């Protein structure tokens, strides 16, 4: 339905291949994947373990280069860029959220969020601070700015990581199994944040292997053995906020022994 708009894609990949040389053997992790993502889309990427999701997301995030094929991000071909140029793109246009949060230990929430802006010399320290505060408020952690990661729950840590991915105002947020380490309730809370960001216009590509998570997105791309198997537009996007309300109360969750 997004194609109906006359917008240009924010991200476009064509015939993307990625091979890994393992001694004698060549692993074909991606075997020719093509699709476009348009501004404002919330795309989930699904597929069995080993289907190539992470490999693809790493290329989309400019952390890796395709063996062949084309990748245009924000109207700029990036498949042949050198290391430093890719780092500039990551710094300015990409926000990454990882499964294991990857916060710097013994570093406060706000300092963790400021981190990406340290590598952008155009941003003053005042602006850096202001943006980090705003991002933390957006993920509901206004009161936890000076907490260290080990003083925060898993869900809170992931929210700090989301704030970190937001702070450079990227053209797309990429998340690799961002709810993979979290229980159902916390996962839904995180999805609620992603849905809110999407409502504010953020483009999101979210890797998951859980169908109930995919149900919160407007489009689901399914990979199998390095090929695009299905590209599905979801007309009945579930509200994470609603789903959260429908969950049994947290006390019962605990009595069940939790979901972790």
């Amino acid at each position: 339905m997004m194609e109906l708009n006359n917008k240009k894609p924010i991200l476009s990949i064509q015939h993307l291949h990625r091979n890994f040389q393992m001694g004698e053997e060549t692993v074909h992790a991606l075997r020719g994947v093509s699709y476009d993502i348009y501004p404002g889309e919330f795309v989930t990427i699904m597929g069995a373990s080993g289907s190539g999701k992470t490999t693809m997301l790493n290329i989309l995030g400019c952390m890796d280069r395709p063996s062949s094929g084309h990748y245009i991000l924000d109207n700029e071909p990036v498949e042949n860029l050198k290391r430093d140029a890719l780092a500039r793109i990551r710094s300015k246009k990409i926000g990454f959220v990882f499964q294991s949060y990857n916060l710097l230990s013994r570093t406060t929430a706000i300092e963790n969020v400021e981190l990406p802006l340290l590598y952008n010399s155009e941003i003053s320290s005042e602006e850096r601070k202001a943006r980090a505060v705003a991002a933390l408020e957006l993920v509901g952690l206004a009161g936890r700015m000076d907490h260290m990661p080990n003083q925060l729950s898993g869900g809170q840590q992931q929210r700090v990581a989301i704030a970190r991915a937001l702070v450079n105002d990227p053209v797309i947020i990429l998340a690799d199994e961002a709810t993979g380490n979290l229980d159902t309730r916390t996962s839904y809370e995180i999805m609620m944040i992603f849905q809110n960001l999407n409502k504010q216009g953020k483009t999101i590509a979210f890797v998951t292997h859980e169908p109930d998570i995919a149900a919160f997105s407007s489009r689901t791309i399914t990979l199998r053995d390095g090929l695009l198997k299905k590209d599905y537009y979801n007309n009945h996007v579930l509200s994470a906020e609603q789903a959260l309300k429908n969950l049994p109360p947290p006390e019962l969750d605990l009595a069940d022994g939790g979901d972790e």
Partner: protein
Amino acid sequence: MSPITLIKIALRALLRNRMRTFLSVLGIVIGVAAVITMVAMGEGSKKSIRDQMTSMGTNAITIMPNSSRRGPVQLDASGSTETLEEADIFALRKKAVFIKEVSPVVTANGQAVVGNNNWPVSLTGISAEYLKIRNYEMEDGIMFDDQIDRMAKVCVIGQTVVNNLFPEGDPIGKTIRYKNIPLKVIGTLKPKGSSGFGQDQDDVIFTPYQTVMKRFNANTEIRTIYANSIGEGYAEQATNEVLEILKERRNWTKPTEPFRVRTQEEMIQMVTSTSELLSIVLTAIAGISLFVGGIGIMNIMYVSVTERTKEIGLRMAIGARGKDILLQFLFESVIISLLGGLVGILLGILSAQGVKLFLNWPMSVSFTSVIVSFLVCFATGVFFGWYPAKKASRLDPIEALRFE
């Protein structure tokens, strides 16, 4: 990334592992402290030798017969072919333009006796100019004039002699018996301390040279002539001139030199060059310990890079370039070695003071050694931090993030 941010990151990383940081800079600390202390030792002894020799008169020149014998002959002229005589003194005073003052030195040996006190000290026969040549100053009384009272039985004495022969003080006007000849004390000298050769320059009895020649030695031979050049830098001209005048008087035609002329400048160079060599050896040893310290830094930086592989991966994932990571670790290694250097400098200054205080060794902490140590530490940080930092900057972000 701004330098301030880089310094903050580095300090935080170093403070996180205080003990490890401390242990890894220990090599640098000890190396620098050793450099500072050893250079202070070398400089100190050089300075004190120079000071002492200056107190003997920097422009002093000694003239002695050139012995035909080989070996150590400074004080033994019995085998010499030529001797110095009073006429040489007059000739030098009259003709030499590069020479300011001239004095013969003739000595007699024995005991000085005052009442029940006796004191073994040699009797030194000189002319009044000797005081100026050797930087002696009068404390009390007057100096004799060797031309007016040529054979007078008078003397001027140094502080050590005063202390030993006149413990109750006030020696002026009293009489010292030297080999049963009474010498009246007409003056005392200000204390001068010991010379660079460990001689007590205050343990002296001066009397007119004619007195020693005629009354004690019964010959007119002069063992040594002391003179001083007109100023610093004239030592060589003065030497040549002295030899010229002495040879001219004797119509000397042989190719060998009849006399040996030695300047104080030569002596200073001779003594300080040995301590310079000592300085070089000490500094080399200290340099090696700094090098070993640098290897300690390199080791700890490799550990730090490996430990923080995941952090490096994350920083790269969110936009850090290889250069940013390189600088981060380079700053860390430079700061750690500068910290070590700073502590080492403080420790070095402290231990220099300690050596001065407890071992009584003359110490002079040289500003240059402090600056050089600091620069060397900076270079050590860059040099030994470079490879670990380069390794960190070349990591692949995906691989690094996967590191556990």
